[in-house]
């Protein structure tokens, strides 16, 4: 079993606190992220300054918010409420980003944010998880609620994955803070989304 062999190797090399996951990935029943290790990072490529990272992240959250608000328009009452809730959560994430900007720079972003902090605006609207909003909406066209929720979970999980990785690769203290904060929020968001999906699937 590879994971035990790996733990063995690390233990022998002096790593003192090593553990192998029992059953490996096959046994994992938690969140699953997809994609290559660098997935999504290209979006942030070229952005070094914290304000750019905040601006780009804000755009992702904004994209997700638009996605959810469009879904709320096509689903009936009970399901609509779920998407409205998700849209509101994105709004709060955006507020957090403003708060973070303020903590770092001592003032709120100006009215031209994020254009004012980005060198170039991305060509199309992208949402968390890296999909274009248009593409994601196209995919949901004739899918049922559970399928759509699974897509949402998948995209948000990939987003969480990305924020954790971005935090690892950036050097700037302030950039680390941006991604730590985003990862933490995404984690909470995912808990909520998972609870909704579980509830929905058990009906």
């Amino acid at each position, binding site marked *: 079993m*590879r*994971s*035990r*062999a*790996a*733990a*063995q*190797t*690390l*233990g*022998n*090399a*002096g*790593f*003192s*606190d*090593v*553990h*192998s*996951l*029992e*059953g*490996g*990935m096959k*046994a*994992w*029943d*938690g*969140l*699953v*992220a*997809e*994609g*290559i*290790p660098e997935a999504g990072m290209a979006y942030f490529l070229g952005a070094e300054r914290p304000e750019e990272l905040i601006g780009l992240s804000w755009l992702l959250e904004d994209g997700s918010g638009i996605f959810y608000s469009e879904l709320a328009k096509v689903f009936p009452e009970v399901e609509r409420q779920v998407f409205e809730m998700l849209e509101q959560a994105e709004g709060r994430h955006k507020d957090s980003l403003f708060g973070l900007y303020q903590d770092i720079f001592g003032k709120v972003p100006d009215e031209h944010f994020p254009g004012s902090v980005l060198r170039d605006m991305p060509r199309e609207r992208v949402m968390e998880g890296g999909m274009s909003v248009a593409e994601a909406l196209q995919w949901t066209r004739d899918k049922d609620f559970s399928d759509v929720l699974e897509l949402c979970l998948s995209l948000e*999980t990939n987003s*969480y*994955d990305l924020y*954790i*990785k971005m*935090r690892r690769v950036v050097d700037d203290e302030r950039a680390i803070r941006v991604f*730590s904060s985003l*990862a*933490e929020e995404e*984690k909470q968001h995912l*808990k909520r989304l998972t609870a909704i999906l579980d509830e929905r699937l058990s009906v």
Partner: protein
Amino acid sequence: MVKMGLHDYFKPVSTWSVEKVRELVAERDPGEYVLVDVRQPKEYERGHIPGARLIPLSELEDRMDELERGKPVITY
């Protein structure tokens, strides 16, 4: 290069249950632990635990310095 004798090979490895790791991932800050996927790239791509790094087992010996010491390391 650390030599592994026969008795080392059979030294018990600590295993953590899925519940325990899921709780770790759900509750702790990602900076507090190290999660390493030691499978092949295609397997990682198809699905991995969020935040996990990929170091295929065959590369682990050479790349273990990428992993921080002093934090729990979970391999899968």
